[in-house]
């Protein structure tokens, strides 16, 4: 503990420390000891990569069921959940199956994405996933404006094991077929 310096009298020790650059010497000793006990914490990045944590939130992807059909039901919840308006979904009925919907178009503007994972949490059918990809530097920003095909491709290469599709498990069925059955249908 240094004594309070407000005494007004010249503290001899403090004075000696000042004129001998004591504090500087302490600092220089530290740097020298780091030089002598050289142990870098650097990772030579392109050559060696760090182990990613299990819950790493990387590039977003759209997923499929094991029979190759898309999981997405076009509910727009991801769009609503996204804090930075990355996602744009154009929802449509599945042709020939009026009870089912799917995302006709699905866009993600990854230049704005902050990888919070809220869309993944919001998705009722687990159609969105976060991969462990992070090397997405591009020369043209427009390449980060991804469409549905690209997002599905990312999911295909990052999630080789797909979820099994059970017909009745599909929330689409439960939601649209059962809950709204009493609502009168629009006459055509």
């Amino acid at each position, binding site marked *: 503990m240094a004594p309070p310096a407000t005494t007004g009298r010249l503290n001899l020790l403090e004075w000696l420390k000042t004129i001998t650059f004591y504090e500087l010497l302490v600092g*220089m000793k530290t740097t020298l000891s*780091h030089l002598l006990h050289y142990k870098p914490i650097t990772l030579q990045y392109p050559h060696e990569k760090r182990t990613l944590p299990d819950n790493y939130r990387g590039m977003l992807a759209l997923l499929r069921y094991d029979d190759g059909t898309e999981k997405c039901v076009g509910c727009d919840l991801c769009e609503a959940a996204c804090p930075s308006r990355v996602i744009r979904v154009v929802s449509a009925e599945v042709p020939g199956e009026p009870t089912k919907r799917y995302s006709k178009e699905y866009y993600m503007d990854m230049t704005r994405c902050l990888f919070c994972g809220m869309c993944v949490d919001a998705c009722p059918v687990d159609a969105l996933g976060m991969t462990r990809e992070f090397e997405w530097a591009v020369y043209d920003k427009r390449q980060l404006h991804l469409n549905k095909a690209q997002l599905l491709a990312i999911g295909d290469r990052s999630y080789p094991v797909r979820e099994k599709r059970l017909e009745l498990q599909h929330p689409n069925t439960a939601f649209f077929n059962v809950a709204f059955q009493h609502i009168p249908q629009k006459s055509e």
Partner: protein
Amino acid sequence: MTELGLRLAVSLTQIAAVTGIVIVTVLLLTLAERKVLGWMQDRMGPMEVGPYGTLQPFADAIKLFFKEDLVPAGANKFLFTMAPILALIPALIGFAVIPWGPNVTYEIGGLSIKPFIISDINIGILYILAFASIGAYGIILGGWASNSKYSLLGGLRSAAQVISYELNVGLSIVGVLLIAGSLSLVKITDAQAGGFWNWYAFAFPAPQLFALVVYVISAVAETNRVPFDLPEAESELVAGFFTEYSGLRFAFFYLAEYANMVLVSCVATALFLGGWNAPYPGTLIGYLGLPSFAWVENTMWFAFKTYSFLFLFFWLRATLPRLRYDQLMRFGWKVMLPIALANIVVTALAVFFFG
């Protein structure tokens, strides 16, 4: 006539050799600095070009060589071009009077050659100081001619800093000059022969240790190095006086800065630490019975001392933060200057009574 031609050839060879050595040293320094700085901060420094990044200086040189040479709009083109040259030439020209090795004379073909001394002018140290001051013009003009506020501020800071610290450099040297009684670096170095107790930093009548400390601190300030790198403070002034420079002109400034570092280290070695003299009387090679090869040991000692100073530069850079401007000025005028002046008085008295 032929003798004149031969002399000219010998001198030119010496100049080429010394310039070459200095440039190679600067190349080495750019790598060594980044490496040492990295190691001190638990990093690795450059690792990509060549094994362990050893070819990095060449990559840098090639990059700078092929970069576009920009002149900002509204710049004074003449001064903008002149400034790097004005900075570089004084930095390199000072090496002419540095004694690199023993003051021996070889008789070759009727010519007496001093291989380690390009020129032994009797005002050697004054010559170096004078040219070091001219080097400041390069910085100031470069800052002014760029037509940029950052450059101008860097140049102005440099002007004030150089004026303040040139003075301390000059005054800290005076003690040595009083003891040696000469301004010639060759004579000063010769007078320090025979062991480290004869070096002027430790010599009997008045050890110049305080002068050495003042000199080193002022030299750091004069070469615009951390912690006195206000003219090129990158967190305040982008890059200070060479913000607007690119390509080869930028390389010139860079070269000048490092050549200046080498120069002040050489001067410190020659004035305070015995130059090429070993810290023991004579040389080991001389004792082994090969006195004609003693110059190897002597030049090695010179190189070792110089590189120790250069290491100190890196060490300071790795450790210290930048001073504030008023702190810099207060330190220069109210701390360094009185110490240097007191040193002169004490040295003068000691030399008068014991010398």
